[in-house]
């Protein structure tokens, strides 16, 4: 089938999905398009400058920052809603533009690199996440490395304090390795390159095989995940000719301020041990609501709760809800942290007064449910 005809059908499908099914229309058109014209990503990438962003955590906010940077250079399309599989990318590319900044799911990154021949790719981090789907962190890193090694014209920008990123970039033809001074990685005991026990110290890691974060091309000060993502976005943006933007890193955290049941709430998306640890470390309020679901995009196995230290919650008023609230409540119980178990967020908020400030840490599906309600 010809591309133009497929594009018309896909656009119609998107229109109908929005009008009749009241969906966002970010997935259906791309899905239809890729079914009718499997090489659509290749065709739609021609004559367009493309930048991809992937990693376990921080994809959406980094993509948003990078799209803001790149739009200084020319017309830019982006999948800023987090619809990051091949179909979401296809839907985004259906709109014409000079540039495209795409957030890409970790497992789909090799396909997107191969088919869109991007100018630049930003690799943020890799750690355990949705293991029912990703299976093993090292295997994801190996797929990335294979994709990187076969893309000689693309420049890769990556945070090599993460050994999996350092490994993925180890043989890249064009790369900018960025170090923020080294930091602990809870999945980093084994060298992804040679399988030896990885040697760590306060400034990072080094292995006899040569894998290290010590030989980065760019060195920056340590800081929060949001700060690091903003730096990486600017480094990638500079490669595309975009003038630097000083980002307010608070805006880069995926947090939403909202009144729930009349109570001022700050809702933050958390989805795996790394993002939970980052969010717990940043808690300021004495009132916390934790919402745990275990649907497909949340990760259907909750074993990882036991990989997270919840010590930051000790002494706070903690209410737990969500479809798998009991998993969380029992995990906290064993850690000696008291919590109240509730059925849903409405009943959870009944434990707080209208003058309270509540911080909400919510699983993926719960986050979008709360923010949209």
């Amino acid at each position, binding site marked *: 089938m010809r591309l133009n005809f497929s594009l018309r059908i896909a656009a119609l499908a998107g229109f109908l999905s929005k009008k009749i099914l009241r969906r966002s229309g970010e997935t259906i058109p791309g899905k239809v398009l890729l079914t009718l014209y499997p090489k659509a990503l290749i065709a739609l990438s021609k004559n367009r400058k493309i930048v991809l962003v992937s990693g376990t955590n921080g994809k959406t906010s980094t993509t948003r920052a990078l799209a803001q940077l790149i739009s200084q250079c020319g017309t830019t399309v982006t999948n800023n809603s987090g619809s990051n599989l091949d179909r979401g990318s296809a839907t985004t590319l259906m709109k014409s533009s000079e540039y495209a900044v795409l957030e890409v799911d970790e497992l789909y990154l090799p396909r997107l690199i191969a088919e869109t021949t991007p100018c630049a790719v930003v690799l943020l981090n890799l750690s*355990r996440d949705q*293991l*029912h789907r990703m*299976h*093993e*962190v*090292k*295997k994801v890193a190996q797929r990335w490395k294979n994709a990187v090694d076969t893309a000689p014209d693309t420049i890769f920008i990556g945070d090599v304090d993460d050994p999996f990123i350092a490994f993925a970039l180890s043989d890249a033809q064009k790369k900018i390795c960025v170090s923020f001074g080294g930091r602990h990685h809870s*999945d980093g*005991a*084994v*060298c992804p390159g040679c*399988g*030896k*026990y990885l040697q760590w110290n306060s400034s990072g890691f080094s292995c006899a095989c040569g894998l290290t974060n010590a030989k980065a091309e760019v060195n920056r000060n340590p800081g929060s995940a949001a700060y690091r993502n903003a730096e990486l976005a600017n480094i990638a943006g500079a490669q595309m000719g975009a003038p630097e933007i000083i980002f307010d890193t608070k805006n880069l955290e995926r947090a939403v301020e909202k009144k729930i049941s009349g109570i001022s709430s700050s809702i933050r998306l958390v989805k795996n041990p790394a993002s939970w640890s980052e969010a717990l470390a940043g808690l300021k309020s004495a009132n916390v609501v934790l919402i745990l679901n275990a649907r497909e995009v949340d990760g*259907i*196995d*909750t*074993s*990882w*709760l*036991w*990989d997270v230290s919840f010590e930051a919650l000790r002494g706070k008023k903690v209410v737990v809800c969500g479809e798998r609230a*009991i*998993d969380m*409540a*029992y*995990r906290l*119980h*064993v*850690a000696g942290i008291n919590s109240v178990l509730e059925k849903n967020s409405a009943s959870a908020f009944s434990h707080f007064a209208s003058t309270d400030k509540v911080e909400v840490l919510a699983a993926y599906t719960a986050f979008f449910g709360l923010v949209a309600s």
Partner: protein
Amino acid sequence: MSNIRIIRIHNELLGTYGDQGNAEVLAFRAKFHGIAATITDVTYEQSIPRNGNIYLLGGAEDSAQLLSLEALRRENNLQEAIADGAVLLAVCAGFQIIGQSFWANGAKVEGLGLLDVESNPGGKKRCVGEVKARCSILNLELNGFENHSGTTTLGSSAQAFAKVSSGYGNGDGKSDGAVLGNVFGTYMHGPILARNPQLADLLLTRATARPFSQIEDPLASSYASIARKY
């Protein structure tokens, strides 16, 4: 016994699938039953204490599994402690390590041989999802989450740990894990002891050689009954 010593082996290598929680649940339940308990973490570079009462191995990726085996081979402390009656719970990659042989990074490796099982690379389909299996020792259906590509066959002297009612278990959808005396192997994460407190109590009873009070922790019981329906 005044204090139960729980030895969590190579958590930095065998902690990918949440199994470290087994140690915390054991210590918590021991204290609940009025017995002091300590958790000792032993890293790849350290020697494994000889005087543990319960030893724990967890799930891991291939390279980490091989490093753990290499460290375990440096000494016989674990084997000697087990010969003296200590308890071992080995999950997933840990279960494969204590068998006769397993495959990692595309090569066959000789295991510790504590259980008469052999693990082999599975087919294309990885065993991922909720698993339910009846354990005859406890006369109870256990539940957990499995996530492995290897399959395990029982040798002539091996006894299955549990009989699978849904899920893959050892890969054939019939048996899960293996058991010999106080050595327990299983593919169930969850962690298994968080979702099945009766199994935690069984391990504690075996380690202390004394029965426990029948008092129940209400939250543990409600979690166990809810998790049965996952």
